[in-house]
């Protein structure tokens, strides 16, 4: 039993590591790809190194030794890059990307197939070694030792401020020690301010040029612990004056987290007696000046204390901003259930408001209003928690485009815009595959070969631009390429050949482009390595439809193609129009609604039984929902047509009454009702009634099929 629990715990830890590693690998990939463009950016090299380093470290901690060992090799190479000994060449980035994929693969197959992964590892490491030639072979045998040392070190120690006073022995130069190198070592430990003390330097004639007169005060913020500071000075410690002390944490009660006052620091450092300080303080001049004037401390000491003050302030500010950015990891199903609960809450609140409006009670009304405000806020917060910037997805495509460019022999760069645009997490996840497919299409069919582009007078390097932007309750995602554009004739010919349209059919450009989304349509003359994913354009269309989104194609010959996806911000809540049919309520998604018009009984009769209404001079086909849903009873004198656009065509829905606009929380229908055509979900109204949400597209299609059938009869 106990053993099992232990195992469970280990598994949880491993899962946590895997999750972390996935994020780090994504970061690694992004940094590498950026580095490829900007190969000397130290910041980027640092990011790559840190990602590798963290994977290595936590891998070892959670028992992924193989990953840790492997990553160590890659890290070693990047250490050299960081030190400028090795350029971040394209070759190196290629191999590192391979290594990244390998780590990824190792993560997901914990029962490491020793032979295959092992072989692949060796292959990659050999490639790396070739690049670094001599250096890495030397470091490899040390690897396990370095690992062991790392484990011994209290690397988990908290970040602390240290005050180091270092007065080297006068004959330090003669021992062959260069104090500047020691200072460099201290700098490696963390953020620090170093201040030299030159007051002991005598005048020239009494100066022995081979003696060291300089001393230092150092303020260091590090998490490596006091011992690693001592290690720096280990060889000079005996002869020198060395004083290392940790500065007490500022977060003592009563100090309000404010940086220490100059006087306090001087007293604490033993440079000034507390009594003298109090005396001086009463005079209220800049304390440093007063103290120096009074000859109590030297300027140098004041200066050093000032540096300390500033250093601590800086590190504190840094820490604070780090704290502000902290986040916690929450399982997404917890968030889902939170959103669900908030949905219930919204419903109950609506009922509460409705009930209180009937009961004339001022107190109750006030409470109800307050609940309304709170619920609205709660809903917004809950929704925003599920929102993710789309940028992470964009970054994935960067890799895709890079790899595809190589395979196709085309040169393509990806530019992005609006990476910070936030979308519901589930929406982003579901967008991934369709977008991959669309981008593949751009690469495969859109962008021409470099030679061809040159002939057309274009830049041989093609561009794919991804743009995301908010537009009301929607996010617009555009995939813009500067390729050859869609070939209208080719598409039409193909469609006729496949029997999707008749030869005589006269189609608008839009209708022709929409043919692309028909199942079984492909204009590619030959199947390339790209089109093998089983995701056709029809699947793209279906996925976007399922998200209640919209897809649109615009193209200009030889200039390029723009594909626009219009996606609702969230799936959980929609804006809808509440309508009534007999005693039943239905919700039509507001996004597809164009307008509402009235239809009197005479108007209906005048079209001789066909479902056509005259709207501003043109005929509009409409669907009598009463018939469709078999709702009996008296039809009112004046009915309403809700005009919606479905697949670019206008269709009307005939209803009894339009009640109004409302925000609804979508509830999925149970298993038994899942496959009912024309209904996409349900919602609970304020008074507890259930309203079904209409699937506009399906209904329109169904009506079309029925109409065709009746014409043929």
């Amino acid at each position, binding site marked *: 039993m106990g053993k099992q629990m232990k195992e469970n715990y280990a598994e949880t830890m491993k899962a946590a590591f895997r999750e972390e590693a996935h994020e780090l690998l994504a970061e690694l990939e992004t940094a590498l790809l950026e580095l490829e463009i900007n190969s000397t950016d130290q910041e980027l090299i640092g990011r790559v190194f840190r990602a590798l380093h963290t994977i290595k470290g936590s891998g070892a901690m959670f028992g992924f030794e193989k990953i840790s060992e492997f990553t160590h090799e890659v890290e070693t190479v990047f250490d050299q890059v960081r030190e400028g000994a090795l350029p971040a060449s394209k070759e190196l980035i290629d191999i590192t990307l391979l290594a990244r994929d390998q780590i990824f693969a190792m993560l997901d197959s914990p029962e490491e197939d020793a032979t295959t992964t092992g072989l692949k590892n060796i292959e990659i490491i050999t490639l790396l070694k070739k690049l670094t030639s001599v250096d890495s072979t030397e470091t490899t045998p040390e690897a396990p030792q370095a690992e062991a040392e790392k484990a011994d070190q209290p690397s988990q120690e908290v970040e602390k401020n240290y005050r180091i006073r270092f007065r080297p022995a006068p004959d330090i130069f003669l021992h062959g020690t260069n*104090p500047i190198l020691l200072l460099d070592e201290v700098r490696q430990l963390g953020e620090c301010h*170093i201040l030299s003390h030159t007051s002991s330097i005598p005048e*020239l004639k009494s100066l022995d040029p*081979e003696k060291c007169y*300089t001393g230092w005060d150092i303020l260091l913020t590090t998490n490596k612990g006091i011992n690693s500071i001592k290690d720096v000075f280990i060889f000079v410690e005996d002869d020198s004056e060395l004083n290392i002390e940790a500065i007490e944490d500022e977060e003592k009660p009563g100090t309000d987290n404010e940086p220490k006052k100059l006087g306090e620091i001087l007293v604490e450092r033993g440079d000034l007696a507390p009594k003298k300080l109090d005396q001086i303080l009463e005079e209220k001049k800049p304390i440093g000046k007063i103290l120096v004037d009074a000859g109590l401390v030297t*300027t*140098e000491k004041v200066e050093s204390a000032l540096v300390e003050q500033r250093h601590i302030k800086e590190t504190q500010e840094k820490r604070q901003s780090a704290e502000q950015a902290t986040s916690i990891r929450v399982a997404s199903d917890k968030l889902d259930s939170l959103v669900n609960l908030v949905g219930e809450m919204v419903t109950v609140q609506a009922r509460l408001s409705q009930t209180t409006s009937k009961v004339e009670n001022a107190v109750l009304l006030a409470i109800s209003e307050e609940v309304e405000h709170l619920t609205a806020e709660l809903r917004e917060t809950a929704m925003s928690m599920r929102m993710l910037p789309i940028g992470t997805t964009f970054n994935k495509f960067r890799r895709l485009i890079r790899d595809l460019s190589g395979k196709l022999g085309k040169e393509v760069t990806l530019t992005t815009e609006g990476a910070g645009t936030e979308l519901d997490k589930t929406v982003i996840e579901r967008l991934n595959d369709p977008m991959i497919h669309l981008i593949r299409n751009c690469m495969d069919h859109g962008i021409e070969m470099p030679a061809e582009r040159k002939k057309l007078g274009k830049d041989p390097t093609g561009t794919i631009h991804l743009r995301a932007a908010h537009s009301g309750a929607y996010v617009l995602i555009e995939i813009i390429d500067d390729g050859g554009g869609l070939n209208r004739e080719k598409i039409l010919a193909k469609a006729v050949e496949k029997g999707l349209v008749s030869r005589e059919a006269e189609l608008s450009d839009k209708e022709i482009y929409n043919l692309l989304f028909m199942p079984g349509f492909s204009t590619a003359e030959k199947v390339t390595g790209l089109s093998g994913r089983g995701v056709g354009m029809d699947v793209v269309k279906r996925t976007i439809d399922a998200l209640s989104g919209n897809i649109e194609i615009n193209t200009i010959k030889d200039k390029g193609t723009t594909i626009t996806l219009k996606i609702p911000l969230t799936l959980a809540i929609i804006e809808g129009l509440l309508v009534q049919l007999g005693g039943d309520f239905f919700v039509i998604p507001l996004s597809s609604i164009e307008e509402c018009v009235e239809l009197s009984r005479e108007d209906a009769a005048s079209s001789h039984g066909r479902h056509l209404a005259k709207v501003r001079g043109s005929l509009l086909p409409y669907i009598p929902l009463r018939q469709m849903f078999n709702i009996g009873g008296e039809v009112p004198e004046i009915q309403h047509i809700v005009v919606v656009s479905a697949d670019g065509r206008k269709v009307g829905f005939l209803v009894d009454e339009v009640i109004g606009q409302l925000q609804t929380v979508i509830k999925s229908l149970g298993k038994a009702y899942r496959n009912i055509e024309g209904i996409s979900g349900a919602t609970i109204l304020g008074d507890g009634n259930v309203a079904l949400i209409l699937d506009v597209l399906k209904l329109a299609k169904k009506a079309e099929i029925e109409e065709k059938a009746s014409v043929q009869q």
Partner: protein
Amino acid sequence: MSEYKLESIDKNSFSLHLSGQIDIIHAESIKDSLLSALKEGKNLVIDLEKIEGIDLAGLQLLCAAGKTAKAAKKKLTLNKKIPQCFTNTLLESGFFRDKKNTSEKTDECFWLSEWVNR
């Protein structure tokens, strides 16, 4: 052996051109040049443009020269053309001062008020 040339600008002003490594190996001869240069005239400009490097011993020398000049009420300055290696050593050794922290009445090295604060 590097040469340290003292050049007269006018009756009271001199310029000392240093070159090569300003380090512990050459410290003794640099010290001598500085001493003799400080005996002449009222204003002395030290020209570091041609130096190839400087170490802590070199910095100490310059600092000591500054103190000597101050004591003798003479004006010692650095040529405006400062090589990168000099600035680097200043940064590495903690000799560099931020304007924010430097009080006016400093017994610090003379160049601080001269150009570090620019």
